[in-house]
């Protein structure tokens, strides 16, 4: 009986986000994912995907977007480097203007100071603008305990205050609420008969309550988007007008901000003014952006019966772990964050569950893990497990923060903080993992050292395939390795790419147009061998002298599990293997986009030699990208070389590029080439398929992975409409598995299609 009762509790879906706000235990994280998928997912998807689309449009309209990002990055790096001096300068500036500055070491210090300011003024009512920093320090709780009424005036915060929930998004804290759920909440809490069935009704209802609060408030508390040390100017970005009310009407204005918000000069705010709103809500500017150097000159608002006071301004700068973060080479990056939420909105997992699952008590999304770790403890960042490293956020961050790299580091630290068990230690040693990574959980060691399993599985195929597909084996793998038994396993091939290639005749080219090596990445060599063969055949037909490399892991798998020492060893070994080929004058072709992205993007974190990093970045190619470049170099048009009429799959295609492929900018060549050949091509517009390498194989995340995949599956169905079913193309191994699992259809690599439609010479 007891056992049963316990099982039921485990399966129950929690409906209060507060109960899963703290995810130091993995169980809570899994409960939160279930809750979000069940209740919050539709609203979160709609809202974040709207932000996401608008951001792409708005940033595309900035003529010097990249230069602005470089400039913003430089300003933040410079300001954080000089932070202690800037704090002192700012303190003097604000004091000279007649304001007060309090530097709070801890959250408690900050709350106590603000409470005392309120009590000194006999404040009964405090009105607040949206401030996630005030959530971080749990300010409301302290003020309320002192008998002060706190009115949250941002409508999202108003909703959360009524519902008693923590924010689920950095700029749209109630992003998980649909209009219908807000109506239901207001009707229940306010017991009103007023019509509340439209956004306008709800807004008017809240506005009427809050207008009264603004006019009667004794103290206004806001955050600050940025603070200039030279003039004491604070920048406040909003759309509702509540922050203007809060900062302009009451006699006492308290601005609460993390000390990382300080930049040296007011004129540098211009850069952020033009970057922040496009990156956040996708507008050129939000309705209101204020630049105030308080205390202001004009008298504050005072209704009859209230004394007309002189304006008073308090700037509360919060450390709460930030100075420690500044000393940490990884967490220091977090201090550059301007909290625009681009990394949340561009994240497929975040779009599907939102910040109550993909978030801690205050901060959420990709950057949220390092904020929670920096202002709390490492365990508070456990939810950052939901970052799959797909890298879609990387080009979206206006400050160029490599968010996946931060999360891979957090994972590494969590792995190292774990206990080393005999079995996992053995597993790690056996599979060639680095000694430093032995304390990682078995699941991570399995996925991170997958090349070892793949190699042995292939040696023992077809026996290994037969055994792996038995129910007992699936049960055991789920139990011990965390591999979900519902997920079809890739089949180990009878022969690896490297061994098939040895048997293929190498057409002796007297005058090759190029020389290349096909890197036998683990996923092609021990998995989708046919893709490798197709690439080899096609390139040779086109006149390229191609050889196949030995198969080694380039470290992607280990990196994504946070096994950083193993990843570094792997990429070092792969790099030294490839260096020989480079010396022979060969270009490196990499089929699996995540392996390619390791060479082009991630290796810079793991290798020491700048020269080697550059060489790998500049001489590795995606195969279709390489073909397109060859044609261009030899002055041939795509339709002269390929014949759409020879396609045995027809001309209607649906193409899903791999997430990391898009980030490193090599999805477009495939789309362009196929269109120029004459195919009718529809491309997916989802950020990620949901599989994300090993993520969708894991028991803990299988449901989430499939839920993310739904957006992609829907796009396929929509594209199919009005004609014959489209042929599915995907460049990534795991995207291919996900499409096959979700749609039960054949999926080709574009190179396989191209290899069959060469015009006869």
């Amino acid at each position, binding site marked *: 009986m007891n056992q049963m009762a316990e099982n039921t509790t485990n399966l129950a879906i929690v409906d209060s986000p507060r109960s899963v706000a703290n995810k130091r235990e993995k169980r809570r994280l899994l409960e939160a994912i279930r809750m979000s998928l069940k209740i919050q997912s539709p609203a979160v998807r709609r809202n974040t995907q709207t932000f996401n689309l608008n951001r792409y449009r708005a940033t595309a309209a900035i003529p010097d977007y990249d230069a602005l990002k470089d400039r913003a990055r430089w300003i933040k790096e410079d300001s954080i480097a000089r932070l202690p001096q800037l704090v002192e300068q700012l303190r003097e500036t604000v004091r000279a203007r007649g304001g007060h500055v309090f530097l709070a070491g801890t959250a408690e210090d900050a709350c106590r100071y603000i409470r005392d300011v309120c009590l000194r003024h006999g404040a009964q009512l405090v009105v607040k603008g949206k401030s996630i920093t005030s959530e971080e320090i749990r300010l409301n709780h302290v003020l309320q305990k002192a008998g002060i009424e706190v009115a949250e005036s941002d409508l999202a915060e108003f909703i959360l205050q009524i519902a008693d929930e923590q924010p689920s998004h950095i700029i749209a804290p109630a992003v998980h609420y649909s209009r219908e759920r807000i109506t239901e909440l207001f009707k229940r809490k306010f017991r009103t008969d007023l019509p509340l069935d439209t956004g306008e009704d709800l807004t008017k209802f809240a506005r009427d309550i809050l207008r009264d609060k603004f006019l009667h408030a004794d103290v206004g508390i806001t955050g600050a988007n940025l603070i200039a040390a030279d003039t004491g100017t604070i920048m406040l970005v909003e759309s509702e007008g509540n922050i203007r009310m809060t900062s302009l009407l009451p006699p006492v204005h308290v601005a609460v901000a993390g000390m990382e918000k300080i930049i040296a000069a007011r004129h540098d705010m211009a850069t952020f003014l033009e970057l922040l709103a496009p990156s956040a809500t996708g507008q050129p500017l939000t309705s209101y952006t204020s630049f105030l150097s308080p205390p*202001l000159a004009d008298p504050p608002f005072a209704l009859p019966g209230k004394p007309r006071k002189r304006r008073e301004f308090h700037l509360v700068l919060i450390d709460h772990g930030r100075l420690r973060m500044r000393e940490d080479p990884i967490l220091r990056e977090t201090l550059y964050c301007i909290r625009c939420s681009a990394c949340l909105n561009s994240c497929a997992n975040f779009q599907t569950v939102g910040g109550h699952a993909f978030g801690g008590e205050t901060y959420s999304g990709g950057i949220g893990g390092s904020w929670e770790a920096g202002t709390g403890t490492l365990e508070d960042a456990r939810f950052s497990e939901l970052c799959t490293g797909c890298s879609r956020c990387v080009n979206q961050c206006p400050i160029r923060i490599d968010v996946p790299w931060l999360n891979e580091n957090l994972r590494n630290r969590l792995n190292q903080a774990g206990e080393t068990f005999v079995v996992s230690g053995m597993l790690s040693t056996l599979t060639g993992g680095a000694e430093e990574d032995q304390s990682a959980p078995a699941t991570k060691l399995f996925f991170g050292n997958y090349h070892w399993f793949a190699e042995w599985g292939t040696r023992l195929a077809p026996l290994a395939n037969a055994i792996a597909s038995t129910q007992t084996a699936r049960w055991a793998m789920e139990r011990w390795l965390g591999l979900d038994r519902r997920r079809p396993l890739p089949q180990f091939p009878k022969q690896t790419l490297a061994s098939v290639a040895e048997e293929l005749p190498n057409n002796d080219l007297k005058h090759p147009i190029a020389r290349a090596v096909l890197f036998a990445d683990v996923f092609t060599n021990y998995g989708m061998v046919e893709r490798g063969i197709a690439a080899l055949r096609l390139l040779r037909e086109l006149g390229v002298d191609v050889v196949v490399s030995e198969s080694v892991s380039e470290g992607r798998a280990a990196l994504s599990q946070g096994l950083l020492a193993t990843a570094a060893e792997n990429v070092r070994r792969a790099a030294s293997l490839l260096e020989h080929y480079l010396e022979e004058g060969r270009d490196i072709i990499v089929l699996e986009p995540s392996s390619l992205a390791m060479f082009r993007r991630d290796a810079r974190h793991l290798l020491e030699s700048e020269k080697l990093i550059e060489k790998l970045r500049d001489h590795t190619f995606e195969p279709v990208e390489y073909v397109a470049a060859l044609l261009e170099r030899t002055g041939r048009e795509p339709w002269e070389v390929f014949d759409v009429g020879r396609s045995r799959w027809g001309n209607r295609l649906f193409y899903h590029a791999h997430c990391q492929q898009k980030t490193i900018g090599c999805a477009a060549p495939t789309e362009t080439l196929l269109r120029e050949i004459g195919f009718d091509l529809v491309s997916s517009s989802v950020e990620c398929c949901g599989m994300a390498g090993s993520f969708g194989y894991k028991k803990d995340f299988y449901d989430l992975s499939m839920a993310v995949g739904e957006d992609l599956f829907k796009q396929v169905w929509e594209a199919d409409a009005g004609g014959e079913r489209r042929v599915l193309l995907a460049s990534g191994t795991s995207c291919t598995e996900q499409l096959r699992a979700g749609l039960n259809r054949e999926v080709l690599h574009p190179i396989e299609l191209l290899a069959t439609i060469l015009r006869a010479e």
Partner: protein
Amino acid sequence: MSERIVEFEAKGEASAATVERVTSAPVSVRAAVERIVGPSAKIVLGPDEFLPREIWQALRELPGLITEPTDKQLSTADVGISGAFAGVSSSGSVCIAMGPPLAAAASLLMPLHIVVVSPERIVARPRDLFDPECLGGEGLRRDLVFITGPSATADMGPLVRGVHGPHRLHILLLG
């Protein structure tokens, strides 16, 4: 310059403000305001800093104008009128300088906000106001608010215009 004004108009409309060109003759500005506000509106006029003196004088004679409003009157007035410190063509924003009495109230508390913009104060991009060469470098010294369209929220589900700040922003473009 005229391209910049055309863009300012288009982007202003795109931000859900309404933009109307009027000649800078004080009577025509006053007439334009009267057409928008209706006969019984209670009007608050902001400071004269960035309005030609004659226009400000003409607006002072509007029938519904509250000449020295109390805070109680401010909280119930219908229309606020401001002269713009600047306009921004790339975003369609108007920029209002805070500081003098009524500057904040006239641009924030009333449901309808009318802003009078002089064409020579329209800059190309928001960043220009942080350039010491632009408008005498005043943009770097003043308390400012960039206003882009009426107040709005997406927190209640669909996009709603008209939240705590003005529900409607009407821009009178002189020239």
